[in-house]
């Protein structure tokens, strides 16, 4: 299995919409 680790998640807002069956990323959302 490949794993998208937490170093790559830095500076990206990560959104888990589990009920909607989707994961989102937003640039600039952490500034």
């Amino acid at each position, binding site marked *: *299995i490949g794993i998208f680790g937490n170093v790559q*998640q830095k500076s*990206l807002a990560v959104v*888990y919409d589990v009920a909607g069956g989707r*994961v*989102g*990323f937003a640039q600039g959302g952490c500034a």
Partner: protein
Amino acid sequence: EGEEAHHYHTLQLTSLLPSSVCNPSALVGNKRSRGSLEVVHKHGPCSTLNEDTVKSLTVEEILTNDQSRVDSIRARLATKTGKKDILGSKATIPAKSGSTIGSGNYIVTVGLGTPAKQLSLIFDTGSDLTWTQCEPCARSCYDQKEPIFAPSKSTTYSNISCTATQCSELTSATGNDPGCSASTCVYGIQYGDQSFSVGFFGKEKLTLTSKDVVNGFFFGCGQNNQGLFGGAAGLLGLGRDRLSIVSQTANKYRKVFSYCLPSRSSSTGYLTFGSSGVGRKVKYTRLSGSSRSFYGLTLTAITVGGTKLPISPTVFQTSGIIIDSGTVITRLPPTAYSALSKAFKAQMKKYPLTRSLSILDTCYDLTNYQTVEIPKISVLWGGNTLVEIAPQGILYANGVSQVCLAFAPNGDDSD
């Protein structure tokens, strides 16, 4: 020059190194009233876990722990899919590896009980059960920063009986069947690095913020706790299973949560429950995978410096990919990693290569540089969702003399 700037990041090397001064994010303060918790790096200056309770890990130790976590995730997935896992059969991985802990670098502080006691918990999307150490620590408790939670001093704590539905749900949430002691449900969870927590399964009031209170939250009240939890009072499980905080608060927050990890260990991030804090610029990709715990994604391509790597889509389809807040370094199928490393090296050829750092084998000695120009890396998720990785997510520095590409290969494309 314009085209080159479009495909490269130019960054100060000091931005990759830890700072000794906490510089909290202003964004967190604005969000606090909307179901938001502050996320801090356990070993950074914004953490209140002091040196007495948290032993700072070396980069090598962090990466070794990270490998334990990845091995554990692979073992769990292999068990569920019936795949033979070669590594999982070795003595390094317990047969019943319940979950994963690894380095667990990010923590949030919540309130538990009545009156609420503040507890710093490791923030983990790769496991489900939330637990904390509990008095009287019948067998063993490790050192933690805050006073250990005492259920006898809370007016809202109650034990869960062995016959309760939630007790039987521990099997999938922890990977272990629950026990029973004097009619009280007993949980046990063991992590990939051999850390574990065993104790009573209980129900309690959980205070996220003054406006966000979860009554009757099911959690583990640990009486025997040992391992690499380093000063944290326990763990906040944000996985997909029914006992995770995400599922337990489904009525209130509709199974939506979001976070920003601190871009440096000296800054802060946030963890927000519910959709109120979610901005409009979010690009979504479909959640995949049949795992009850992990969040599966579909990776379809990687670009380096504006050029798409020549990787067959079947390479990504064979293994699949999950997103995990507790794993430090991204693992890729070796065929994909090889293409990534080769392209990265080709575009970084003006910088001198240096020795490997544990699992990271593409490292540079940047001692003689103040700024570095690195190729942009983007990942293309299913549904054509292109996400550019921030420069802080491309390199991992062990001082300026050893700055490494922050990706590593799996053992085999079928892993």
